[in-house]
């Protein structure tokens, strides 16, 4: 933990109301300001106690505090450094270690995830039992979306209409396996807007899951960089918020290896909405008579500062009305692997979000991150009512460009 970064905090407290765990529990040590204070204590020589580790683990890494901070504290870097330190110093309980082992052995690997789909469908029925064995396993079973048919994407989707650009598409791990329709829609939208879309086969995890949990993400970063270099693209379009924010940080993650850092810096990483707004609309939008609520994914709104672009794209569709969700800057509780490791807090935040989404009266929720989609759907289902359908921005645009109905 870099003492210089800690010093930037002036203890003003402006981060408190933006912090999901402070909103839930109202405790100083579960706020960004309090966690920075704990980091300071550790830097001054206090060993990482189980209590201290618990407060760091409880941080969702949503980065809302980074947006709110007037002093420019780089909490994102601080918490990443801290998580790595916790993994090095703190001995977790065997139970905790086992769950972490399972998650990190499965999620970053699309092939293993694919094998997991059948058992997870069964797990849905076993959920009450699993929840008794371990709340994390229960959460995993509850979150799993209904199985989707696998869609094989071609290696190249040529531009429709006048050619405007060539881009690479990251297919991701969770997005690709659980929401294949989103990748297909993303490729179609880009092609209809005049892009040659290159989809390199054999892509793996971008490293986001590891990075956000204090594990080494460099192996994943290098492989992703090499994959897109081989494919010959310099612009990569990403449709998952968490992946996009991690890939934008590749040069920093690989800072110790200058050659790799330079290769990382040569790649332009863009979120889908960000890229489409930069490119400007060319294809004809067909009307969609639907009222949608737009959900700000933390890794889009806070980590990448992308709030206006998705709204601009949605508002550009004739007939479509966008409603704002109250407390839009507060995390839904998904936060990468958070809902697996901290199921109780995640559940409370999910319920809070579901309630506010429902209050908008929208017919469809638009969410640009697979984790949020699973989390909010699970929370709405828990609420007893029929969950409103959730679609990615790409799917809404796809429907408008093709003149069809939105399929979540």
């Amino acid at each position, binding site marked *: 933990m870099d003492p210089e970064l800690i010093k930037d905090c002036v203890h003003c*407290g402006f981060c*408190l109301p933006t912090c999901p765990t402070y909103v839930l529990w109202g405790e100083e040590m579960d706020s960004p300001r*309090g966690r920075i204070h704990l980091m300071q204590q550790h830097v001054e020589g206090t060993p990482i106690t189980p209590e201290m580790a618990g407060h760091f683990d409880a941080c969702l890494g949503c980065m809302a505090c980074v947006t709110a901070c007037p002093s420019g504290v780089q909490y994102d870097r601080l918490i990443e450094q801290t998580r790595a330190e916790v993994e090095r110093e703190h001995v977790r309980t065997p139970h905790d270690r086992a769950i972490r082992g399972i998650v990190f052995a499965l999620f970053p690997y699309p092939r293993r995830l694919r094998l997991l789909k059948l058992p997870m469908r069964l797990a849905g029925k076993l959920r009450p039992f699993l929840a008794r064995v371990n709340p994390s396993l229960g959460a995993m079973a509850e979150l799993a979306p209904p199985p989707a048919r696998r869609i094989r994407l071609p290696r190249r989707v040529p531009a429709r209409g006048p050619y405007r650009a060539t881009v690479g598409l990251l297919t991701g791990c969770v997005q690709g396996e659980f929401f294949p329709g989103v990748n297909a829609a993303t490729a179609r939208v880009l092609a209809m807007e005049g892009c040659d879309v290159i989809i390199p086969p054999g892509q793996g995890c971008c490293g986001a899951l590891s990075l956000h949990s204090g594990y080494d993400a460099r192996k994943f970063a290098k492989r992703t960089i090499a994959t897109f270099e081989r494919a010959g693209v310099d612009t990569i379009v990403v449709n998952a918020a968490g992946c996009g924010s991690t890939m934008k940080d590749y040069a920093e993650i690989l800072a110790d290896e200058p050659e790799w850092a330079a290769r990382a810096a040569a790649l332009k990483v863009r979120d889908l909405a960000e890229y489409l707004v930069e490119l400007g609309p060319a294809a004809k939008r067909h009307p969609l008579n639907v009222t949608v609520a737009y959900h700000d994914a933390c890794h889009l709104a806070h980590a990448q500062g992308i709030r206006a672009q998705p709204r601009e794209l949605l508002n550009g569709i004739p007939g479509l009305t966008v409603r704002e969700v109250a407390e839009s800057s507060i995390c839904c509780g998904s936060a990468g692997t958070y809902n697996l490791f901290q199921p109780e807090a995640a559940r409370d935040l999910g319920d809070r979000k579901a309630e506010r989404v429902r209050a908008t009266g929208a017919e469809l929720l638009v969410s640009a991150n697979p984790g949020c989609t699973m989390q909010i759907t699970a929370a709405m289902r828990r609420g007893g009512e029929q969950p409103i359908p959730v679609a990615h921005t790409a799917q809404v645009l796809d429907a408008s460009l093709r003149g069809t109905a939105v399929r979540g």
Partner: protein
Amino acid sequence: MTDLLAGRLREVLPDEAVITDPVRLRTYECDGLTYHRATPGVVVLPETAEQIAAVVRLCQEFRVPFVARGSGTGLSGGALPRSDGVLIVTSRMRRVLSIDLANRRAVVEPGVTNLAITEAVREAGYYYAPDPSSQQICSIGGNVAENSGGAHCLKYGFTVNHVLGLELVTPDGDIVELSEMDAGYDLLGAFIGSEGTLGIATKITVRLSRAPAAVTTMLAAFTTIEGGGRAVSAIIGAGIVPAAIEMMDALAIEAAEAAVRCEYPAGAGAVLVVELDGPEAEVDLQFAEVDRICREAGAFEIRVAASAEERAAIWKGRKSAFAAVGRISPAYIVQDGVVPRTALPEVLAGIDRLQEEFGIRVANVFHAGDGNLHPLVLFDDAVAGEGERAELVSGRILDLCIEYGGSITGEHGVGVDKSRYMPRMFTDEDLDTMQLVRCAFDVGNLSNPGKVFPTPRLCGEIPRVRKEPHPYEAELF
């Protein structure tokens, strides 16, 4: 003793609401003023007035001091904990209990943030008027304790003008209610601004104000701070009471620019933010007048917010200025003093001289309309002696305020930070009289002791070594 007390506290509070783990306790060691630190003996997180009353009664039983804390954003160390005492944190008491638009009032718990009150009634066209810069996080309980102000208090008054009633736990552990409608002494007025020394507010009835029909926010840039000062005097002199007149000097502008990219006009030695509100015709008329006055006083650029977003952008620079100073200096002291508006130029010149004399930079942000200065004294705590010099400059600025007929605090409170300056402003007789008021509420001196007054005293013992009786006592007996 602490273990025994903690055990008893756990009988009246849920287990997880009593914090005794040393690592956790330390996160409560200071509020928004980090210069003073003390690790509390125990922290409690009550959720009801009855729980607070039970905690206070236990403190009385054990004869240990207690300190109330809201969001921990105070700037005078008013919520500085006692290492031998209990810190009562109201951050879990954040329900808006009732909203009565017909009577324009709302009842809220003390941990509700200032801004949350406005958010709860905004759609109906109402708002809660006092607006400290930390309004998104500071708690209404803390506002009551410190009688907090804000940019818009020039026209609408301070917390004391917007609180209609209180439920509070007295230092004896009784739950009592005070109301503006009470006959007799204005105890509500005595409690507001008492900085936790007379008890802990547990329910607050606040006044809701109707949102103005029209609001115009303008930003006027001047090459010098004197130009801005002239404009302020002329605006007030013309009989106009704007909703707010705020001034920032070049250093404060630089900080805000670094923090929030507020894009104030380049090359400005001072900017003035003037907000006018009220019926549309009145606002238009006043705007024309203010615009003329600013230009005559030497404004080289005037911007008017055309939308709510532009208004927010103008205010963002001002409201984030304190914390933004963290971008241009490793450490700083936020000072809070008041001077008569007409003395502003002399006092600012005096601050300039202090900067030169001590080699310490001072950024100036202030509520110019009511002469409430917020000099930000910058220093590097890694440089030996600089903190002490900054402290000295900070104190000298208050001397200047007193010299020109002002006060050592406008809205941040006395707390622990300024108690030592109280004797510069008040005579011993004045302080003793205040002490008598305090003793009427808190006989055992357990409610936030060590704050406001320079030296701790016990009630019953004669304040100060003195030969003659206190003048007020003399009259009585």
